[in-house]
C-alpha cells in the first residue's frame, strides 16, 4: 500500500471518536435501476441520515432520479474530486469503473457501501479492502439479513442438528423477460453480466455465510456460455470451515425453471430455505424426508427485499457511527469473491 494512502487512512474515525447518533450525510454515485428502485426508497426511510447528492456520468439520469427525491443531482465528470465530501457513499456504478472512486473515498475517509460485485477480481478486492478500515467498506450481499438466513446461520453455529454435512443450492429460472434493454448484461467485459456474477454469487455468499466458511474450492463445474456470458453453472465445491469441510452442490441458471432453494443437509434432517426473503425455513425429517415442520423467525431478519436492504443499510450506518464492522463488511465477502473468481477461472479453462 502506498504511504500516502496509509497517512490518509488515519482520517477515518477511530473507535470511540464518533458521536453515536450523529446525522450521516450520504452521497450516491450511479443512478441506475438498483438505485432508483431499491436504495433510494430504502434510504428515504432511514432515520439519522441525509442524502447529499446523486451523481451519474449521464446528467439526464442523475436529474431524473434525483428530481423524484428532491435531491441535488451531479454529473460525475472526469474530475472526481468535484464530488462533495460526505460521511458515506453508495457506489453503484459498473464494477470496471469503480477503482478511482474507491481510491478517492479512501483518501477522504468516506465510508463506502458498494453494490456487488466489490471488484473485478479477488486481487483487486483485497487491495480495495486494504484501503479502508473494516467497518468502513461494505459489499451489497444483503441476503445475509434475511430472517431465514439469520436463523440458518444460528442453527449451524449452535450445532442444533449436528454437523452440517452438505449444502445444495438451486437458483434461477427461465428468465425470458428482461424488462429493459439491459445491454450491460450481454457484455461480458463490463463485469455486470452472467448468471454467476449477477445472481449466483448471492446464494454462494449465503452458503459461505451460513457455514462460516473461509474458503470455497471448486471441484468440478459445467458452464453454459453464450458469447462469453455464462447462462448456467452446475458445479461442485468444497467449503473449508472451522469444523472441517462441507460439500456444496451448486446449480444456477437462466435457462430453465429451478427450485430456488438452499438445502442444508444434516445427519437426520434437511433444512430448506427459499432463495427469496422469508421468515420461514422448512425442516424435512423422518426416514423418507417427507415429514415437514416449519420454523418461523419473525422480527429476526428481513422478510422482504426492502427490509433486507434496510437492515443492510442500518447495520452499515451503525458500524460507521460506532467504528465496528457490520456483517456486510467487505472483508467478510472476500471468500465469496474468491470463490466466484475461481469458478470463472475453472469454467473458462474447462467449460
Amino acid at each position: 500500500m502506498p504511504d500516502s494512502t496509509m497517512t490518509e487512512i488515519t482520517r477515518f474515525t477511530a473507535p470511540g471518536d464518533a458521536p453515536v447518533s450523529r446525522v450521516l450525510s450520504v452521497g450516491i454515485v450511479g443512478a441506475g435501476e438498483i438505485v432508483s428502485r431499491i436504495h433510494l426508497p430504502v434510504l428515504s426511510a432511514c432515520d439519522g441520515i441525509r442524502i447529499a447528492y446523486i451523481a451519474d456520468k449521464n446528467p439526464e439520469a442523475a436529474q431524473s432520479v434525483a428530481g423524484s427525491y428532491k435531491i441535488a443531482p451531479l454529473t460525475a465528470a472526469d474530475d472526481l474530486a468535484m464530488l462533495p465530501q460526505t460521511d458515506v457513499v453508495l457506489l453503484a456504478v459498473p464494477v470496471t469503473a469503480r477503482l478511482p472512486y474507491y481510491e478517492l473515498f479512501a483518501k477522504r475517509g468516506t465510508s463506502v457501501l458498494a453494490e456487488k460485485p466489490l471488484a473485478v477480481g479477488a486481487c483487486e478486492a483485497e487491495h480495495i479492502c486494504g484501503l479502508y478500515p473494516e467497518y468502513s467498506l461494505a459489499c451489497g450481499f444483503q441476503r445475509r439479513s434475511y430472517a431465514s438466513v439469520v436463523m440458518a446461520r444460528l442453527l449451524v453455529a449452535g450445532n442444533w442438528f449436528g454437523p452440517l454435512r452438505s449444502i445444495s443450492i438451486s437458483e434461477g429460472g427461465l428468465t425470458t423477460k428482461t424488462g429493459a434493454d439491459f445491454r450491460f448484461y450481454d457484455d461480458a467485459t463490463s463485469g455486470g453480466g452472467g448468471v454467476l456474477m449477477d445472481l449466483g454469487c448471492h446464494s454462494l455468499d449465503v452458503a459461505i455465510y451460513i457455514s462460516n466458511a473461509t474458503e470455497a474450492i471448486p471441484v468440478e463445474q459445467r458452464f453454459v456460455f453464450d458469447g462469453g456470458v455464462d447462462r448456467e453453472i452446475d458445479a461442485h465445491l468444497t467449503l473449508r470451515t472451522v469444523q472441517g469441510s462441507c460439500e456444496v452442490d451448486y446449480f444456477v441458471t437462466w435457462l430453465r425453471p429451478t427450485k430456488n432453494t438452499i438445502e442444508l443437509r444434516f445427519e437426520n434432517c434437511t433444512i430448506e430455505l427459499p432463495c427469496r426473503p422469508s421468515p420461514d425455513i422448512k425442516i424435512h425429517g423422518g426416514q423418507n424426508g417427507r415429514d415437514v415442520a416449519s420454523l418461523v423467525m419473525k422480527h429476526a431478519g428481513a422478510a422482504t427485499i426492502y427490509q433486507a436492504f434496510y437492515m443492510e443499510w442500518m447495520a452499515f450506518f451503525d458500524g460507521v457511527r460506532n467504528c465496528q464492522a457490520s456483517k456486510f463488511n467487505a472483508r467478510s465477502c472476500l471468500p465469496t469473491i474468491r470463490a466466484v473468481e475461481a469458478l470463472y477461472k475453472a469454467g473458462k479453462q474447462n467449460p
Partner: protein
Amino acid sequence: MKRVAILGANGQVGTEVSLRLRDVEGIEVVPVARNVSGSAFLRSNGMECRHGRISDPTEARMLIGDCDVVVNFAVSNTAIPSADRDMNRQIVRSMVAAAKPGAPIVFASTIMIYAPVMKFWLPDSYGLEKLIVERMFRRLCAATHHRAFVFRLGHVMGDLQNITNKIRSEIRDGKVALPHHGLRASNTVFTAAIVEAIVQVAQAAPKPGTYDLITFPQWVWLDVYKYYAAQLDLPLQLWRAAQVRDPKSRLGSPGALMRRSLHYLANHHALTERLTFFLAFLPRSVNQRMYLRYLQTRALNEINALRQSEKVEFCVEDWRELRVRSFGQMADPVTLMARYPLRCAIGHSRSDEPERSDQTLSRN
C-alpha cells in the same frame, strides 16, 4: 414458406408461441428480442433469434422488413405509466411502418378490455391502454394498407405460463377450491390456439378484424383443472373454500359493538384489569353475561386464527363469463396442444439436460 416475426419473443407467451410454431410446415419463425439475455432460452433450444429495438424505426426495418406476417407480443411494463404508454405506442407506430407492404399484422391485446373483474364495464389501466393502442393500431394499418388483426387474449395456458405452473402445483398439493364449483367459464386460451390463429393468418388469409382468443366453446375452470390433473396423472381433489367467520364482518348487527368492545378488551389486559373494578358495581347476572361474552369472543378469535392458517382460498378469480367473438373454427384445446407440441428443454433440475450438442449458444 411464410416468414413470421414474433415480437416480444422473450416474453412468456412469445416464447411458447415461437417454440410451438417452429415445427409448423410452411412457416419460418423469426423470434425477435431486445437483447441476447432475453433470447438465451430460445437460442438454447436451437432457435435463431433477431435482436434489436422494435421501437426504433431503423432497427425495426432490419428486424421485420422481410417478414410476411408480424405478430406483436412486445409490451413495455416498467411500472412507470407514462413511459409505458409512450413506448407501447412507439412500438406499434414503428412496427406498422416497418412491416412489409400489405403484410398482415397481429396485435396481441387482452380481455381486460372487457373488465371481467367488474360487474360493469370499467377496465383497469392495462385494459384501457390496450384499448387505446388497439384503435391506434387499426388506424395506422388502414392508412398503410396492412391487414390488421387484433387478438384479445384470455388467461393464457401453456407449459411455460405461470398460471399453468400455479394450477399444476395446486393439483399436486391436493388443495383446489374453485368458485361456483368450477362451473363458471374460465376465459382461458391455450398457447396452441394462439399458434393456430397465427397459422390461419399466415396461410388461410382470414378476414381482418378484432377477435377474442378464448377457447370456444368456453372451458369452465373444472375442465381446465381436469385437463392438467389428467396430464399429471393425479386425482383432482376439490375443496370448499372456507368461509371463516370474522367477528368484525357484521358491524351492523346489534351485538357488533359489544363484540368489538370485548374483542378490544380481550387484547388489552391492563384495561380489562381496571374495568373489573367497575364491573363489581353491576348486578351479578350482568357480570355473568359479560364474562361469558368475553370468553366467547376470545374463543372465536383463537379458533379463527387457527382456521385462518388452514383456510383454503379460491384458486382462481371469480371473473365474469365473457361472450366470445371467436376466431373461426378451431379444434378443442387437447387436439390443438397435441397438434402444436412444445419441443424444448424445461426440466426443473440438472438431471433433465437440455438437448444441445455443445456448451455454447448461437447468437445469430
